[in-house]
């Protein structure tokens, strides 16, 4: 009996302000990439292909944050062309490291780097994709975890919710059998307030978590900040701990502000 050949779902991968690391995660799926390419029509993925097919697309993966007037317009078009839109990584979900400009004067930043800042067209802020268009799912991490990326792609292909754990890094750290770096060694660690997903890499390498997956839901950042202070960390240093790759995520932004100058 002749099978009915279903049309392959069309995948698009988009880049905004970013380091390319999250979309590289897809190419880093060395064991799965050709299988993924067999199940999906990789219709638009300029980092990997010259073939750029027109939309609409069944699934769009969006990397990067919105930092220019042109990108603020482009994301609207990407949304219109995408049946499902999933943001990947800290830039797309929280503005990324470049959101540090949100707390500074972007003109001064530009003048510090470029001899002719007037040639640049840039916004005063770096913002998450969800600040501009509705988003169907947000995958965290700086960078994302490639196992989680495959789970998200699989879930959207099947039409179910992605199974992405929403607990803190601490749970994964305990599962990994690590000795707590903060309790045992007095090393400041953001694990209790950070969203899981990396597999608790930093404590497994004898250092504290630095929060690259952003705040977990209900994060008690005030309590962890008090703990850091009791370990002897200066007020200004505590603020900076929250001002990295997810500086503009609400919980981290507020905690940093409360330790401001």
């Amino acid at each position, binding site marked *: 009996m002749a099978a009915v050949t279903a049309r392959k779902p069309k995948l698009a991968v988009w880049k905004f302000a970013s380091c*390319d690391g999250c979309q*590289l995660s897809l190419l880093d799926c060395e064991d799965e990439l050709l299988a993924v390419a067999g199940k999906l029509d990789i219709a638009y993925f300029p980092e*990997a292909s010259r073939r750029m097919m027109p939309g609409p697309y069944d699934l769009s993966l969006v990397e990067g944050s919105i930092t220019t007037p042109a990108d603020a317009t482009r994301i609207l078009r990407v949304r219109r062309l995408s049946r499902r839109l999933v943001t990947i990584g800290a830039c797309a979900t929280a503005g990324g490291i*470049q959101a540090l400009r949100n707390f500074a004067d972007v003109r001064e930043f530009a003048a510090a*780097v470029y001899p002719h800042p007037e040639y640049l067209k840039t916004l005063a802020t770096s913002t998450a994709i969800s600040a501009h268009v509705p988003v169907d799912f947000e995958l965290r991490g700086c960078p994302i975890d490639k196992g989680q990326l495959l789970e998200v792609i699989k879930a959207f292909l099947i039409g179910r919710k992605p199974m992405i754990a929403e607990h803190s890094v601490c749970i994964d750290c305990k599962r990994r059998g690590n000795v707590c770096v903060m309790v045992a060694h007095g090393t400041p660690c953001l694990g209790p307030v950070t969203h899981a997903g990396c597999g608790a890499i930093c404590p497994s390498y004898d250092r504290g978590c630095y929060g690259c997956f952003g705040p977990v839901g209900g994060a008690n950042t005030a309590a962890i900040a008090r703990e850091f202070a009791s370990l002897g960390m200066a007020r200004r240093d505590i603020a900076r701990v929250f001002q990295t*790759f997810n500086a503009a995520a609400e919980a981290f932004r507020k905690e940093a502000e409360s330790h401001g100058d």
Partner: protein
Amino acid sequence: MATKTVKVDYIARVEGESSLKIDIRDGIVDGVRLSIFEPPRFFEALLRGRGFGEVLDIVARICGICPIAYQMSGVHAIENALGIEVDAPIRALRRLLYCGEWIESHALHIVMLHAPDFLGYPDAMAMARDHKDAVERGLALKKAGNDLLTLLGGRAIHPVNVRVGGFYRVPSRAEFAPVEESLKRARDLAIETLRWAATFPFPECTRDYEFVALRHADEYPMNGGRIVSSAGLDIAAADYETEFLERQVPYSTALHSVLKRRGAYLVGAMARYALNRDRLPAEVRALADEAGLDPVCRNPFRSILVRAVEVVYACGEALRLIEGYERPARPFVPAEPRAGVGYACTEAPRGVLFHRYRLNAEGAIDDASLVTPTAQNQDVIEEDLRQVATASLDLDEDAMKANCEQSIRNHDPCISCAAHFLTLQVNRT
């Protein structure tokens, strides 16, 4: 009067966003403009006020493809400012880490980004339908590099383990066993990849580049050495800014770097090989000869062979370093803040990466300067394009675009790094 513009709005298979515009007037290539529209992220500005211990996690985020390069130039520049000398086993471990990134980054470029140009496919996935073994070999090679990065760094992208003075944690001898096995296989795969790439049709093209690379007393350069060039430059990293200058052009968010006295120059695999071939082991040189590489390769389309030679080398070098590995007595030497300026150049997969940091007495960054390989290669890429476009004038527009794009990919530009890339537009007037 015949005028024409050829435009590529978004250059594919490079990391980042760029476009190309070529103006042709009366059958002569009049203007070539590689525009990088990658949004600026202002790393040098946002580093100010951060503690020296925070820098390495931040600069890694300049590039997801070569974060180790940023961490290596960063760590050596900061240690230079603080007057820190690391222990010999730590130095060896850093070289091993860099081998992982060279293997991963070069394998990605050779097989996934560059090879499809030679064989006429839009991408590696389509190429895999006819060249499955070659693509799978490339992916396995890339994976071996990533496995090494994951062991030493915790993960392949934005690894977490490098710190000022050494590493947070150093692996035991036993932890290397699985990686050692995969690298032995990877070395064979790398040789097969080199032999495969040697069969590609290479366009004729000879360029008179000034090559710039590091040169070390006895090693193929990665983390140390003087900055030398084929025109006789020989300086320390600290003198970089006296010889080189970064300029800004209105059509790009990437800065262009030039030699103050002579202008455009080339960094990357071709430059390293031209200036350091004698530092490669005899068996690697023999494989390069077998692949048809001249001791100095001046055809940028053949750069894929040079990268393949470097992957063979990096696999062997990694195995040598693992064989000689003894767990360092201490993972890091302590770092005390002090005011000072530090400089370092290391060899990123794409070439010389310069970092300078000025630290205050508390150890915070007062100012930083980072010069990326792609910023240094931009003028050469535009000069190459002028030559390739001129040679392609009789071709139809699609063929001309394909040649120009391939010419850009010859140098594996990393736009995310530099804007801190490409739409092709050709104007015929």
